[in-house]
């Protein structure tokens, strides 16, 4: 029954996203779907492992540039490009993960921010020969058409990204339900206690780091294919808080949080930026307000109300003590 409820929920969510495409502009919908994938990795890190990372743009850029290098210098198939992007993020995460996951949350946040700064300057100044610096790499016309879902067509890209987002969501749902998901949560709650049971916290955190950042790299690669262009701006430290904001806005540690957060954040950005010049200021105030009145985020606050309304029964936990 519980599984049915979850799958029903995600099917409905993605069906709604598909229907929303009829009423909302395609670029907006593509942005929402890719951003929700971006936020899923961040959500897993914060919600399950307790790691806040302000360096997610760096992993986004690793995925985007790996994909872009392939499409600019070597090949034309966008699916291969996306795969190369994910592999790029995976390899980088495996290389730097063992150094970073030794740190606790505050230092982890800062060292990742430092990484974003490094990647930004590497792509902007140091590796200009291959990244073309601020001019970026343009390869939209190099991307070849593919059968079935042609990613050069935005509407096809939307279907592809929607399917991919559903798959990524299902993967995180599986992780959350697995014993590994419980291990991640346990290491967040009390790492010492987990060691008492014979678990190696380092391995648990490293795997989580690699999974989350590979997801972020996937989002990066999708941005690269969708836009047909990458620039150092992607790794800009000024955008470091974006995935964290989306995660918090949606509801930390909730499965629907990244999707809801991405819709809310992209929507606010889209609507408010058309009305007000300094839209970031308004969003800043809005976030402060949300933190004060609903610290569980939009989905975290709405979910219990919706569940009660839809299923008309209390969960076993809400009964309190016998």
């Amino acid at each position, binding site marked *: 029954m519980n599984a049915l409820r979850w799958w029903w929920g995600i099917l409905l969510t993605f069906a709604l996203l598909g229907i929303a495409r009829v009423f909302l502009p395609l670029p907006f919908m593509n942005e929402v779907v890719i951003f929700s994938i971006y936020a899923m990795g961040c959500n897993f890190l914060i919600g399950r492992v307790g790691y806040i990372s302000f360096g997610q743009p760096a992993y986004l850029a690793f995925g985007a540039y790996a994909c872009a290098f392939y499409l600019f210098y070597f090949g034309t198939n966008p699916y291969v490009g996306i795969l190369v992007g994910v592999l790029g993020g995976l390899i980088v995460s495996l290389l730097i993960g063992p150094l970073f996951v030794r740190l606790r949350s505050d230092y982890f946040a800062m060292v990742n921010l430092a990484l974003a700064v490094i990647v930004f300057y590497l792509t902007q100044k140091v590796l200009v020969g291959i990244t073309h610096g601020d001019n970026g790499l343009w390869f939209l016309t190099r991307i070849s058409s593919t059968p079935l879902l042609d990613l050069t067509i935005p509407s096809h890209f939307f279907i592809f990204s929607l399917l991919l987002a559903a798959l990524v969501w299902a993967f995180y749902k599986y992780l959350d339900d697995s014993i590994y998901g*419980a291990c991640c*949560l*346990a290491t967040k709650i*009390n790492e*010492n206690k*987990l060691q*008492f*049971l014979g678990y190696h916290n380092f391995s648990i955190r490293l795997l989580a780091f690699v999974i989350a950042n590979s997801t972020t790299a996937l989002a990066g690669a999708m941005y690269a294919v969708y836009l047909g262009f990458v620039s150092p701006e992607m790794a800009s430290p000024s955008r470091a808080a974006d995935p964290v904001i989306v995660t918090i806005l949606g509801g930390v540690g909730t499965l629907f949080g990244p999707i809801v957060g991405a819709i809310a954040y992209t929507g606010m950005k889209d609507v408010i930026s058309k009305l007000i010049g300094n839209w970031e200021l308004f969003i800043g105030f809005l976030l402060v307000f949300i933190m004060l009145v609903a610290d569980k985020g939009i989905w975290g606050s709405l979910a219990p109300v919706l569940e009660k309304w839809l299923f008309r029964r209390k969960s076993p*936990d809400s009964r309190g*003590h016998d």
Partner: protein
Amino acid sequence: MSREILSVKGLNAAYGEAKVLFDIDMSVNTGQIVACVGRNGAGKTTLLKSIAGFLKPTSGSVTADNTLLSGMKSYDVAKFGVKYIPQDKKVFFDLTVRENLELGSYATKDYNWDQVIAYFPKLRLLMERKAGHLSGGERQMLMIGRAILGRPKVLLIDEPTEGLAPGIVAQLKSTFREISLKTSLLIVEQNLPLVCAIADKVYAVKDGRIVAELGDKESISVAACERYL
């Protein structure tokens, strides 16, 4: 036939410059319940942490089943079968009872929960409840139940009855006896009547040293233990 399962020889431990344990010698045999008694600050918890690998001894050795544990990481000590149940009863409060037990099962590859339910039948009714919503006694049951998965060689239990209702303490008393048939227990406890009821051997710890060893049932009494507190 009882044999030595845990042996501590010449153990010294310190927190930075502050030396806490001095030349500790002790042993636990199979099927035994061994208790450590002493005042607060005597070094009992430090002793358990040193055995469990959470505190690196400055010198001395800890051996379990002829394997040297000193120098092993805490998770390797637990994997080897020497498990520590800390005093604070902090289970993984965001996880359900079932998930807490699954963590124990996954680490040990022992998915037979019948033994756990046999010792603590109440846990069966609480499977889907978040561990953070359990009472102190239920949490203690969960921690012990989770720890006995995989049939560890030795359980190191820190103050198991602290803050528990007398009814729960009485239940734990008989449960410890049953568990000790398969797993030896080294318990740090201030509840002297409980210690005297279940312990096969008692070590009195004072100022980081073992000041007495009551090695047989006849010599273990509340009065005898109190002499060293």
